[in-house]
């Protein structure tokens, strides 16, 4: 349930939000700022280069909670698709 397939169009090493699982630490690689959600996520501290950890997955698999800059933010996987990340650990 937690691991989707890597969507097309995302280069090797980069993954989308839909394939992150619990406990994963990641770094934001690039953000497509045309989407409303990614703009808000940047404003909340998810700028390129920022590391974050997936701290929680909701009982139904979505949304997920991440720890970014010490704050816990919850977001929907589908909505965060404009952000690509790379796994750190």
């Amino acid at each position: 349930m937690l691991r989707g397939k890597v969507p097309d169009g995302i280069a090797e090493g980069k993954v989308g939000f839909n394939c992150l699982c619990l406990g994963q630490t990641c770094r934001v690689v690039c953000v497509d700022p045309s989407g409303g959600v990614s703009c808000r996520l940047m404003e909340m501290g998810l700028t390129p280069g920022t590391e974050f950890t997936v701290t929680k997955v909701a009982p139904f698999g979505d949304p997920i909670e991440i720890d970014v800059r010490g704050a816990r933010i919850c977001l929907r996987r589908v909505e965060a698709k404009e952000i690509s990340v790379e796994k750190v650990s």
Partner: protein
Amino acid sequence: MASQQDRAALIALVGNPNSGKTSLFNALTGSNQKVGNYPGVTVERVTGKMRLGDSYASVVDVPGLYSMRPVSVDEEVATEVISGTAAEGEPDVLVCVVDASNLERNLFFFSQTLGAQAPTVVALTMTDVLKSEGRAVDDRKLSELLGVEVVPVVSHKGIGLDDLRSAITRAIDEHRLPEVDMGFPAIVREPVFELHEQLARAGIDVTKSAVREALLDENAALNHRLANLPEFVTAFSDRRAAILGNAATGKTLDAQARYAWAGRVRKEVMNEPGVSSRRASDRIDDFLTHRVFGLIVFAAVMYLMFQSIYTLARPLMDLIASGFDWLKGAVSPLLNGHPVAQSLVVDGVVTGIGTVVTFLPQIVILFFFISVLEGSGYLSRVAFLMDRLFGWAGLNGRAFIPFLSSFACAVPGIMAARVMPDHRSRLATILVAPLMSCSARLPVYILLIGAFVEPKFGPVVAGLSLFLMHFVGLFFAVPILWLLNKSLLKGKRLPFVLELPRYQWPRLKDVALTMVSRAKVFMKTAGTIIFILSIVIWALLYFPRSQAADARYQVDYTHATQIQASGVTLDKYVDGRRMADSYLGRFGRAIEPAFKPAGFDWRLTTAILAAFPAREVVVSAMGIIFDLGGDMESGSSDLKQAVARATWPDGRPLMTIWTAISLMVFFALCSQCMATLATIKRETGTWKWAAFSFTYMTLLAYMTSIIVFQVGTRLTG
């Protein structure tokens, strides 16, 4: 820009959601608060008065913001207050609440408020939380770096409030505008420098920070000031386009530069020995958002809340009702000999006030729970846990609370829609919540199921049908939500990005203030409307009344031997005739043809109309119109028999099983509840949505009951 001397200073309290802003507002203003709406939208406008030296200043509690670039109506309203483009004018001072435990993100927002060109004071909150985690902030250093006074406050203990007051006074007196160099790259720094020079040459004195914000954000305050100076409008917009047009960094540059700056500030002011240990809050959260236990706890919390509204409020409501009954009994004899005045006071005024007051226990109890859930941080977890259930409808998991509350009563349910984070989802919730089967529908179900289902099919089917009736509204709510999203409330989906704040003990003062302010808001606005409508309905049921008509009814009674034989007294007969001939009764007769396809005659139609003040009134209205008097209980066997005996003029029985089901379905879906409509008016700020709600629900009820009656009657021959 200078503070005007002829009015009280205006203080705008701004900051991130969950930063402790509202607690600070409560601490500063106490019970000196006023709750209203921003014109035309469901966004709440909370203002208060606070002591400032020898005088008072007015404080606006600006809705929480993550950014000065709004994506929703709520955020738009909030940014307008800060920029000074809202109705109340430019704030004399911004008190920017900065949560020390979330320093970077709060500084990001602070950096954007520099565009407002207003003297600023930072209130530093959550320093006590930080301390408990072994961390500390150097507030003097922070003040140096931000160029404004920084005052640590612990609102619930009253710590720092006096310092904050004097810092505010100094900020107003000195009118020093904040200036922060955030180390933006040259692509921004150079045009800022040029534009600043250009403005200075034109005699416009502004800070570089304000120029920078105006350059990066077309809605910043300075842009509004320069709107009628075309040379500057183009100068700014050309340079803005150049920055945004830079493919490599354009759109991410702004946020990246601010966070880089915020990160540097944090490093300098924060004393964090080692990696902070796992927070206590996380351990609680592991349990409360666990995929098994989390859902169990959630179900238990919701059950407790619902049961409390349902059962705890009940005795209080009964007490209020009997109090008003006593009052009626006490007032009535004083007006003997003045029948119109007597009826106006007893059945109109006292009943109307009684109706309003009866809602208070539910509202107060519900808002006790909501403010505890909100203050503790659990409300955000509700959104997290239940997101999947509501996400498809453009709502989030918090919608669970207004919907659940609406099963007790739509009035508190609609008021609870304020837990929804944005105008659109709040409106969707408000429009659909009244479809939930509230407790006022219960007496109608009990009467009709008791009279028509139970005798025929036995208690098991009766119980089951009562259970099923509670789902009729829910069944329609789903497609209606979908339709609303596709039509009226169509638009760009708002990003669902939610913060899950640390768990905290809810503060008694904040909880109490919420309960009081909700009760006050309801009494003042919705209450007034409900009261006026009660009087109108009373008048429609009372007039026209004449002694001649009464005499005629009495003569008719002496001739109606059959009615006498069935035990109907003269008084009850006259009451029934009076209702039938009242304006409302005449209206009921007039629209009988429209309701005939649903199986209702003019008596049922009139009873439905008379139930507009509240659904449960239909039982006593039916009592009167079937000549049994108004003191009817829904379980009364007299009423059941009278209703079952009633016939159409041609002798066919009026009530078949399908008429009963049709009537129940009508009541499940219709909008016969003026309190609900008055509350919708209050919460949305306009009659438009109340009218919309009434229209769609009435049409839905009307059409569904016709379909049920016609199809049902045909199926069973």
